[in-house]
């Protein structure tokens, strides 16, 4: 019985293919069944029934970028943490201590951002 690495992902690939097929089938089915009566009002963006004001892609808050940056920092941290957590009991205690130092630096960074008011959504 093949239990190798690639075999484990067979079901994932089959499910992915099935999902792909199912989505395509639904799209085609709704295209076949749904009526098509194009009119001018359908081509305009929905804005509670009035004619849209200005551009659809408006300006938005810069804070979204700040939070994206924070996410990046902590996501990279999580990427390091996941393999470390699995093996750290088997490693010498220096592995634990160095990870704690890494975490401490990150927590200090979070505290600094907190103090500076970056985490406050205004």
């Amino acid at each position, binding site marked *: 019985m093949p239990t190798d690495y690639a075999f484990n992902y067979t*079901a994932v690939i089959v499910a992915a293919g099935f999902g792909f097929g199912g989505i395509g089938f639904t799209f085609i089915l709704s295209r076949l069944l749904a009526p098509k009566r194009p009119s001018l009002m359908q081509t305009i*963006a929905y*804005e509670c029934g009035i004619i849209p004001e200005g551009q659809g*892609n408006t300006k938005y808050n810069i804070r979204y970028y700040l939070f994206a940056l924070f996410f990046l920092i902590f996501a990279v941290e999580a990427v390091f943490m996941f393999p470390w957590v699995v093996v750290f009991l088997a490693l010498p205690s220096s592995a634990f201590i160095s990870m704690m130092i890494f975490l401490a630096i990150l927590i200090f960074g979070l505290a600094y951002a907190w103090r500076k008011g970056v985490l406050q959504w205004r």
Partner: protein
Amino acid sequence: MDWVTKFLDELWDFIVQSLSDNVPLIVGSVKAIVIAVAVMSVVPGLVWLERRLMGRFQVRLGPNRVGPFGFGQPMADTIKLLFKESIIQSSADKFLFHLAPAVVVFTAIVAFAVIPFGAPFEVFGQSIELWGANVNSGILFVFAISGMGIYGMVIAGLSSNNKYSLMGGLRSSAQMISYELSLGLSALSIIVLTGSLSLMDMVVAQESVPFILIQPLAFLLFFIAGVAETNRAPFDLPEAEQELVAGFHTEYTGMKFAMFFMGEYINMVTMSALVTLLFLGGWNTYGIPIWPILAFAAKVVFLLCVFIWLRSTFPRIRYDRLMTFGWKVLLPLCLLNLLITGTLKVL
């Protein structure tokens, strides 16, 4: 006619031989299809459950006209949506507009394929395992794939060329990346206890006592982050009706609109299954004499009811409070919990 029977015999032998050589592969594929079909057909039932329960919570009946107890209502709605005209406004990006709902459903189905439902059992001398794929990095895989679902919402928001959609897409991306951190970090403290990323190993490690008793804080953090990840009330800011019409799917109609909901409900089931596997002991029955798979299903259905219960109990929280809560409460608590758990494990 002799050569025909000979040819048929050889063909039959060839088919039998190639089938018996690849039994695990075929079983795996069949299971994957069964799981994908099952998870897609769970969605109407869940919609029905939600609408009935919401009705009862709000002291009304809920849908009760189509079929027994209104059970046919979601089916009727699906058929209605199939016959609805698909409207695309002229300034929208056509390709991305069609891609977005597909991404949402696709990632939801693929993420569910690695969830195990029960211990393996024997049928006709063949060991049948109750999971699609036994991926040794199960939880990481689920996080990775369901994280990709954010793309669907962001793409939907950007491609619609509508202010409400844009705001909804941005909000959902910011919310989901904020709470994804807490989700991952609170799961880390469970991985500390099991020392494995495999979902199977986590259930095996909970044979005597479920992790909810050992790690109650991690359970709470994980569940809150999970509710936020699936965009469910009280964290359904991306689709807040009063301010954003319908958020990132404002411009969607017909089946494409239904696909977003399908993705959301499949994600709900995946999240409930994850909570069950990580904290409630998976299919361990703890002495109660029922089938393990029924125990698993009961726990998942209970968590789904909790999801619906939360929706009808809590009002939607404000966006600034949502972000503040994610970054100033959940994330520090997750880090603290992880530090304590790791330190206790080392000592």
